[in-house]
């Protein structure tokens, strides 16, 4: 490099270009991480294939795939927006990535926007994959696509808020452990593969207020039963979104 190479010529790239670049990088990091892929792709796929083809759980009337697919779609959203994002962001915070990016021209809200885009891109890939597998297993969904989209978006917001709250307040190791534990508990108790009506009545009313139950239940109402927009579930997700994103905005620590 010759003389004059480093002559100052500072300047930020245009904001949309910065956010697009950041989102692309975040997506690549998500897809490159083996543990993340296990969580976001392998586990939902295995659950869908296994429980649809082997009669282990009584999923009620109708084809098992009709019951399982909405649950597994909800699980996919949770695995990416909540578990995956919490763990990745927790370690980015721990290793100074968030701090270093904080000194770059990319504003903090731009970084969060990029993270959200990366989550959405990953979810699209998951949903395409799971949908293709479900169709191969004989799935025939009902309902309208708009209601499904709205539920998925609300679910993403609710889980992102909770994931970022965890990542921005706990130690990275604590986030790793807690996010995995929560994933497991909600997988079992959130109506993903085990119908909520298998639980005692008292437990059902509490479990029904969890974001995962609202998302899986809402998606199931639409996709399995052809119901119109399930506003009750949407409202539960909206409240979780407000609480989670609000608390994350208030308590998130960058270092």
């Amino acid at each position: 490099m010759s003389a004059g190479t480093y002559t100052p010529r500072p300047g930020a790239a245009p904001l949309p270009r910065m956010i697009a670049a950041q989102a692309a990088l975040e997506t690549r990091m998500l897809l490159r991480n083996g543990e993340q892929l296990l969580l976001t792709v392998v586990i939902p796929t295995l659950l869908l294939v296994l429980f649809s083809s082997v009669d282990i759980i009584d999923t009620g009337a109708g084809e098992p795939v009709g019951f399982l697919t909405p649950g597994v779609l909800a699980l996919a959203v949770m695995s990416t927006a909540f578990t995956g994002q919490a763990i990745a962001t927790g370690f980015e915070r721990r290793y100074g990535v968030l701090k270093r990016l904080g000194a770059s021209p990319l504003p903090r809200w731009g970084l969060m926007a990029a993270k959200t885009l990366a989550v959405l891109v990953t979810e699209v890939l998951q949903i395409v994959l799971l949908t293709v597998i479900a169709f191969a297993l004989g799935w025939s969904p009902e309902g309208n696509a708009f209601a499904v989209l709205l539920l998925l978006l609300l679910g993403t917001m609710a889980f992102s808020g909770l994931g970022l709250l965890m990542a921005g307040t706990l130690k990275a190791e604590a986030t790793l452990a807690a996010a995995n534990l929560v994933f497991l508990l909600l997988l079992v108790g959130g109506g993903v593969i085990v119908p909520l009506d298998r639980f005692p009545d008292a437990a059902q009313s509490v479990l029904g207020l969890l974001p995962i139950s609202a998302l899986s239940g809402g998606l199931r109402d639409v996709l399995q039963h052809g119901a119109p927009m399930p506003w009750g579930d949407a409202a539960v997700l909206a409240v979780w979104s407000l609480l989670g994103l609000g608390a994350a905005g208030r308590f998130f620590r960058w270092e």
Partner: protein
Amino acid sequence: MGALRAGRRPDLREGREDVGEPGAPGPSPARLDLPAMSSEPVVQARGLVKRYGTKTAVDGLGLEVAAGTVTAVLGPNGAGKTTTVEMCEGYRRPDGGTVRVLGLDPVADAAALRPRIGVMLQSGGVYSGARADEMLRHMAKLHAHPLDVGALVERLGLGSCGRTTYRRLSGGQQQRLALAMAVVGRPELVFLDEPTAGLDPQARRSTWDLIRELRADGVSVVLTTHFMDEAEELADDVAVIDAGRVVAQGSPEQLRRGGAENTLRFTGRPGLDLASLLKALPDGSEAAELTTGAYRITGRIDPELLATVTSWCAQHGVMPDGIAVERHTLEDVFLELTGKELRA
């Protein structure tokens, strides 16, 4: 045999010496080929205070960095170097005092300041799953007129990292990547927090060369270090920090001259009239006959002083034998300055 002392020794702690002092050698030659420097300092900190709980990390610190220079913030671990630099970078809000960087408030004007500065953290700052060139290309994309990433990768010897992800790079490779990330956006001012910590001697030299190239191209550099030789080799200006305060600031040459005594020894006829000799020497010099006929002059030992001593000897018919000059390193200065502070 007592020591005599001429005038009052200038106390470096009071503030920095004037560069343009008559008789003193000019600024280091490397500075001369620079374009005319703007008078506005790129960093101006006054009375900075930062507390963590009951601990005061930075305690009324003042620092000025002239444009186009390399300034070393030198101090032991825990002296407040990183906290100081991080207040300049906008990471921490001072509890007291003011700081301006390129004329801006690093916290309030962060959006305007960030594109103009480059930052190298002491460690980390890279996605553990990212490859070196990938991360560097990404940082380049956040800037309007970045450096050529391929050339920078080669320049810093990161080409051999290939497809290795950050967490598997060696400590030295991680350091060099962090340095590259600080400069890729073509900033006006870079902050480097311990840029050569953990580097092998060759990589260290290469980093020093890059810092010199930055300065030659008009980039201002602020670096923290606890290596004396690094400050001595690189810096136009050194701020010695201890316990959250600047205890001395000046060029390495000025610090060596002023901070600790340098020594001139010679032997000659016993019982020389040292009072007469001292009259010929500049203020701040001391002269003593240690043992019979063995003399020691301490103070600012420069070519002029040597000439003065030899001509005084010539006038008095004295043949000075075994003339020896001992010049102190920054390390001595540092020990003198901070050692006193620490024992206090």
